């Protein structure tokens, strides 16, 4: 019979607090009914859904699937969601697409054992910083249409604030978390543009990174 011992305590690391969001990107397919979109599940280097191209730092800063590596921690303050329409878009159905995207969908944030901590219509999650300005289109011979729409004020301060009493939610090293967008009412195909749209979710807050 072997001796029973207690596990060795983990060493305490020195961490630096950085104003650094966690972000992840997914693909909303053009011409197809939407499927649930998950965020923070596929890290840097993993295959982007739909395109199967390896994710780079443009797509995510997660290095592990659905968790922070040891000894990193994160203080979560809120969420932002942005989408990008590529190319000059045929806007014939843009209003329907925006309705499908924001008003028929649910944004859910899971923490720990797939327990939802937030379930709200996506319309509640603002874009944050976004293109603003004017837009005019005079070329009537071609379908060169354009849209720069965003949800809520185009401001760095615009976020779904998830704090209670200004106290951020601590995400510890190796704790599971992810976000998901679903369409419980079952909507039709997105028809904007000529290409798939990139959609990105931000967890806004402070990252505690190793020195």
């Amino acid at each position, binding site marked *: 019979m072997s001796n029973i011992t207690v596990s060795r305590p983990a060493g305490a690391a020195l961490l630096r607090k950085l104003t650094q969001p966690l972000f992840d990107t997914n693909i909303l397919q053009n011409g197809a009914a939407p499927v649930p979109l998950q965020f923070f599940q596929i890290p840097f280097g993993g295959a982007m859904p739909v395109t199967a191209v390896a994710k780079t730092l443009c797509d995510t800063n997660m290095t592990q699937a659905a968790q922070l590596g040891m000894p990193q921690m994160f203080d979560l303050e809120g969420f932002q969601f942005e989408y990008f329409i590529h190319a000059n878009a*045929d806007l014939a159905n843009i209003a329907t697409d925006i309705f499908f995207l924001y008003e028929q969908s649910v944004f859910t944030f899971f923490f720990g054992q797939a327990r939802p901590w937030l379930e709200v219509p996506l*319309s509640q999650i603002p874009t944050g910083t976004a293109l*603003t300005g004017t*837009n005019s289109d005079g070329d009537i011979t071609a379908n*060169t249409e354009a849209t720069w*729409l965003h949800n*809520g*004020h185009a401001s760095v301060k615009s976020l779904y604030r998830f704090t209670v009493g200004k106290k951020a939610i601590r995400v510890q090293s190796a704790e599971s978390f992810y976000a998901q967008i679903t369409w419980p009412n079952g909507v039709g195909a997105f028809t904007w543009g000529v290409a798939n749209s990139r959609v990105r979710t931000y967890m806004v807050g402070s990252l505690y990174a190793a020195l």
Partner: protein
Amino acid sequence: MITKERIESRAALRQLKQPLFDTGHILTGAATIRVNFFQAPQGQPIVAAGALKTEADTNLTQAGQLGRPQEFDLYGFALELIIVGNVAETTDTDLGMIYDTGAFEFYFGQQRPWLQVPADQVPNGTGIEGAVACANDGAAVNYLWAHNGEGASDAMYNFTIGKKPIPVGSLENFSARLDWPGGAITITGAAAIRARCFMKGVLYAAL
């Protein structure tokens, strides 16, 4: 024999920044006198004989109350009016009519009104903004993304007094409604307008 009521065990609850929300329809081409909120939970029709509500429509699982042991701290209200699809040109008139002659009411407990204000006092909260340029569609395509008040995530009718929220206990009755007390309205846009009411605050959920 006289016995004492059993003392209920107390649950451990987690504070979540999670609004309560519910959706109703203002039907087009039909007279509408009232839209009720928080009365029909998930799985109930959104309008008579209509589609059943999902979590995209409401997060209430019981009619007019929170299930035990949930509790809620109410800070304020937001009211989204959602235009469905490419709009007919009449929709701007519809929106004006809804806000001009509408009243927002919140009821708590035994059908006691706790808030009665013109509908335009309750802001939309986060809403679509930006620019669209449309050159050569050949079709009668109209866009309307209007929202009441700033399209800001913290825009709401602040219902607190001295920054103190209103507590809503488990099984306490509450409801809200969008009313047209001066007479029913009939909107004429291409489709029903979805009206979504948010009770903004903190949900105390079971672990």
